[in-house]
């Protein structure tokens, strides 16, 4: 661990959405605490995963990081500088340090501008290149993400979903940011194409020492991409730590339920769930917000909300029974060893044959 300041420091971040409805005189105000007390750090070159179900506050956190929306509380420090304290102009200049890749490459590219123009624009806006220099840089960027430089003259509709996501990645890389925030960046892609994009992201990360906050609901994808993972539930981080440790021996019952619920591509599929589904739980008052669904719930859980506290090397959990969460393993017994060996060797041949 270096003594230097981490690239990204998030402290006690909170966002409350206020909704006003009804006619004058009969106004109702409802508040939704989308994100509460979220704190984490991302070191240079590190990838942090944010996982959780819809409504857990993952995407709101992403938007707060980039200050696309203003936080209700807390601070976001990029290279030691508080983004929330910056003026609009200074913020625009600093945003170059951070770029975002969105889920839907159909919605995030401008259909009326050529790909080359869209990639050159951030370079010119941030004063990093003249128009002529930008053209050369764009060609290099397209090659970097596995596209033909001649594609610069094409328009987004001429590309497939996977190619569009490559363009979105190229655009995020254009101004050489320190940090990329990827919000469900591969969720809309087909399996075979998704693997291409995940490998591309892995290569870029390794070669450019880029930091990433990778948001996904798909734990399989997260396992392959991130170094550390933060599990969010109802706006809070409930567990955080190195992804291998967290997935192999979860310290929060919610993490374990999420892992159990993942569909698995092998005979038998996923394990049956024991926890009640979300939806009908009453709005949590005091106590742990997961208590209503928790298989390990005990009276103490309903008294006060547990803090996120250290539970092991580099690991934190917000559960008073963190030590009692059983290990969860998919096991390997379902495929006979000989078949597994054949499959592994076929996949090796598949890769080798492709390279040839």
């Amino acid at each position: 661990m270096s003594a230097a300041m981490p690239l990204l420091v998030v402290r006690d971040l909170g966002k409350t959405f206020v909704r006003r409805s009804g006619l004058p005189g009969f106004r109702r105000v409802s508040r939704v605490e989308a994100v509460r007390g979220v704190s984490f750090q991302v070191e240079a070159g590190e990838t942090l995963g944010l996982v959780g179900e819809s409504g857990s506050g993952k995407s709101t956190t992403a938007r707060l990081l980039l200050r696309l929306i203003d936080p209700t509380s807390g601070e976001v420090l990029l290279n030691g500088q508080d983004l929330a304290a910056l003026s609009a102009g200074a913020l625009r200049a600093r945003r170059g340090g951070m770029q975002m890749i969105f889920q839907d490459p159909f919605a995030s590219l401008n259909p009326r501008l050529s790909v080359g123009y869209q990639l050159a624009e951030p370079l010119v806006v941030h004063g990093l290149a003249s128009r002529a220099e930008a053209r050369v840089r764009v060609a290099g960027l397209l090659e970097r993400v596995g596209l033909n430089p001649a594609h610069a003259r094409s328009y987004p509709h001429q590309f497939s979903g996977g190619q569009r996501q490559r363009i979105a990645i190229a655009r995020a890389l254009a101004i050489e940011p320190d940090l990329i925030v990827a919000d469900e960046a591969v969720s809309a892609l087909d399996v075979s194409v998704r693997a291409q994009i995940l490998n591309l992201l892995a290569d870029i990360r390794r070669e450019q020492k880029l930091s990433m906050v990778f948001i996904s609901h798909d734990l399989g994808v997260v396992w392959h991409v991130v170094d550390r993972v933060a599990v969010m539930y109802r706006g809070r981080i409930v567990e955080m730590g190195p992804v291998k440790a967290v997935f192999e021996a979860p310290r929060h019952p919610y993490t374990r339920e999420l892992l159990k619920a993942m569909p698995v591509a092998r005979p038998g599929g996923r394990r049956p769930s024991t926890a009640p589904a979300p939806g009908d739980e009453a709005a949590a008052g005091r106590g742990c917000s997961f208590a209503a669904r928790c298989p390990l719930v005990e009276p103490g859980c309903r008294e006060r909300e547990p803090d996120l506290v250290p539970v092991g090397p580099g690991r934190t959990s917000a559960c008073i029974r963190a030590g009692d969460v059983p290990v969860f393993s998919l096991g390997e017994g379902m495929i006979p060893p000989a078949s597994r060996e054949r499959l592994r060797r076929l996949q090796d041949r598949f890769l080798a044959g492709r390279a040839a």
Partner: protein
Amino acid sequence: MTVTRSPTSSVAGRDGAAVAGRPDVLRADGLTVEFLSHRGPATIVSDVSFAIRAGETLSLVGESGCGKSVSVMAVLGLLPRRQWRITARAVRFEGLDLLERDGRNLRAVRGKRIGMIFQEPMTSLNPTMTVGEQIAEVLRYHLGLDRRAARAGTIALLDRVRIPRAAERVDDYPFAFSGGMRQRVMIALALACSPALLIADEPTTALDVTVQAEIFALLRELQRETGTALLLITHDLGVVAEMADEVAVMYAGRIVEHSPTAALFVAPQHPYTVGLLGASPEWDSRSHRLTPIEGRVPLPAEIMAGCRFAPRCPFRIARCEAEAPPLAVIDGAQEAACWRAPLSPEALQ
């Protein structure tokens, strides 16, 4: 291991009418679907055959554009005839010919003997009617129930799909339900007339995994109780593993592999299936490198003579580019459309 190749070999052709005494509920034989554009017809589905028996689940799996949804829409007569041309040797549902021109047979079974569940439960429900009215409408139209009986039946159905406090929620509008609960309403609608076949097209893709697990548990339970056959369309091999008895893998409009579900995961026989399994990230796999399938699915206009997977296939040989391999029995009940099947790592060195 025996390899027999017959030109008519197909999923349905494997064993005539009945396996283990169960009759086929639905059988499509040689289904071909063309989209008629101003540039001429484009073949979206070619020569696809499948059969589903009572109480069993068949999954059509493949990536976007492989023709899995179009095949089913064609069988159900949901594709406008002005834009689509559908041909087949036969499409039979409980003995009825569904391709018959005036569509009378189709109208008689759709929504009654065949229930349907789609991906997006918000857009498939009418937002201006209570869920109770929508289900009662089906009961009154198809089963001829009166208002009171239909309401009682509706509450019983909502109860059956485990919607809490069904008698109160029957008067709620769709927006008052969560995504998972809405999908339960859709299942109640589909089951309203005790169908012999339930068709589910990506029924849980829009839902969180924990909710997805619940919906599948419910579907399995209902299937056990009623003996309904289930045709499940999905892109997710994990869903296939959990739900299906048999699986047909589709690629660019053709079935490339068809087998009992366990065999597909234990011993895949088509290179595309091998690639798909390697490209699916699983959290407990040891390797941190995925095996992507290079390139992309051919567009209908780009389809050439040989095997449609050949341009992306690391195992291709000269024959693959010249001649399309038919779906042929590889091992027992397992079929693959590949000249190099059965795949063995040694032979591919």
